[in-house]
């Protein structure tokens, strides 16, 4: 039990020698990563490099086959209780929003607090409205996701995760499916969230966002962490050839 109580020095997320295969395909190769409380990590890399898979392992949407993943003191194993504990503490935002289309925006936000946390419905609604205000769409609360723009939907998705009051937020390419003019409204919300001291792991290619909020930027390729550094150093003095090539490709436009 003492293991699950967080203390100041303990890392929020710890990956130790993590391996994962999809069939014969080796997606994650010996990943070591430690994320401290309040740290903001941006993960980039070419498609198929395993970056999404890595953060999806952190809330067990994918199962790792070797190594250890410890989230806020709880190790992810086949123990369903641990998985539930971790999922309650870890929020996730997806590329395609994955809002529940049959529920209103407000219901999307209150569902998990009521059913998972056992929060009274009234309290859950009050909390939900606070977070919807924070992502600046309280006026859409009674609408259905299908009636909102992509940017609005993604902001609802962020609010929905925050309603569970997680300690860690995972972002899996949150702006990749958005029209260009909607990207900044989502990034603004994420920057705002970063300023509150939330521990964040973001898979994204928004390098401006990385420069602004990240403590560390990670470059992954072919299932490995190739390079990990502070944004300044990462962008101006990349160490590896693969990082240089990747950066020249995404920054050249």
């Amino acid at each position, binding site marked *: 039990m003492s293991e699950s109580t967080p203390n100041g020095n303990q890392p929020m997320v710890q990956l130790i020698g993590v391996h994962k295969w999809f069939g014969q395909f080796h997606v994650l190769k010996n990943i070591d990563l430690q994320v401290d409380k309040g740290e903001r990590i941006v993960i980039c890399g070419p498609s198929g490099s395993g970056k999404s898979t890595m953060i999806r392992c952190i809330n067990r949407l994918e199962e790792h086959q070797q190594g250890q993943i410890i989230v806020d003191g709880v190790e992810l194993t086949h123990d369903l209780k641990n998985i539930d504990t971790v999922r309650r503490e870890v929020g996730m935002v997806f590329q395609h929003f994955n809002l529940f289309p049959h529920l209103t925006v407000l219901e999307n936000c209150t569902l998990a607090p009521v059913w998972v946390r056992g929060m009274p419905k009234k309290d859950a609604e009050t909390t939900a409205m606070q977070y919807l205000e924070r992502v600046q769409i309280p006026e859409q609360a009674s609408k*259905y996701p299908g009636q909102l723009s992509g940017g609005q939907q993604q902001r609802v998705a962020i609010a929905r995760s925050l309603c569970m009051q997680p300690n860690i937020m995972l972002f899996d390419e949150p702006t990749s499916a958005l029209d260009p003019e909607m990207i900044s409204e989502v990034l603004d919300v994420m920057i705002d969230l970063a300023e509150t001291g939330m521990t964040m792991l973001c898979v994204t290619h928004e390098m401006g966002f990385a420069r602004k909020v990240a403590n560390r930027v990670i470059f992954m390729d072919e299932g490995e962490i190739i390079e990990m550094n502070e944004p300044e150093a990462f962008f101006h003095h990349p160490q590896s050839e693969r990082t240089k090539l990747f950066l020249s490709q995404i920054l050249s436009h």
Partner: protein
Amino acid sequence: MAKSTQLETRRPAAVERPPAVRTGLLGWLHQNLFSSWFNSLLTVVAVLLLARVIPPLLNWFVVNAVWTATDPAACKEASGACWAMIHEKYRLILFGRYPYEQQWRPLLGILVLAAVIGVSCNRTFWKPWLADAWIGVLVVWFVLMWGGVLGLPFVPNNLWGGLPLTLILTVIGLAVAFPVSILLALGRRSRMPVIRVISVGYIELIRGVPLISLLFMASFMLPLFLPTGASIDEVLRAQVAIIMFSAAYLAEAIRGGLQAIPNGQYEAAHALGLTYWQTQRKIILPQAITIAIPSIVNIFIGLFKDTSLVAIVSLTDLLLSMRQAIADPLWRRFFVEGYIFIAMIYFCVCFFMSKYSQYLETQFDTSRSR
């Protein structure tokens, strides 16, 4: 700078009305009936055909029909339909061999059932108390039909027949089969091999045999396996066969809906910490069932009509009670009217189900504002 002011001063394009179309009766006629020489020809042919068909039908159905007569001879002379037969026999058709002076009980039963169905159709009443109301209504229904309490004379259920029997076989059949079918559909997609194999086995086995054979097995073979002396009620046996049969079909309709749900919905639910059953109940099934409404209603309608097969195990459903009613040698020649009469009853119920499902589909369509 100069460029941007130019941009700002540019006037937006004027809003124009859509091109005018010819309206009014003539415009409609032209557009829909006489838009080309071929369409005009079709219109003329169709009108001629209708002119040939409608008057004789109208004559038979209405003009020359005999509406009330206690004597079949009056019908024999007329060239139209003999609705007098229905007038004479409708209680036998609707209630079968249920004791004549007690037939107010099945009638009341039908009305109570219809009332609770009507209430259930309104989405705003989908609250927990509705389930209690249903249980209450079913209790009332069986008390009315069986009697033996509250001073109502006992009526054994081999005397039940007609519309009440058809309705109750359908209503209970669907009400029980629906939850079973959800479990079967989930079981078929389960990651646990034993559950999956059982579900697949059940669905394929039941779907692979005709309802008639299930009814036969339930009513003639089942007693062979029971200890001597023990017996299961005949109506109950048929009811179980109907439930088993429709559960297999419904399960496949619901599985179709389940397969249309994108994986992201499961992932989002899991990421929020919802358990398997919470995910199914709150996220997946509401969407899957909405998608499956057309095929579910298709099965409901099919099942309602298929209940007439219980006649084969000598239960007097609506169809059989009509046939027994026209077995009367005096009225036997007017069987067509009998079939038309019950066809209309079947049609009304099925049409209602179909219309209601369309209404539900628009209700659940959240992509449009309401």
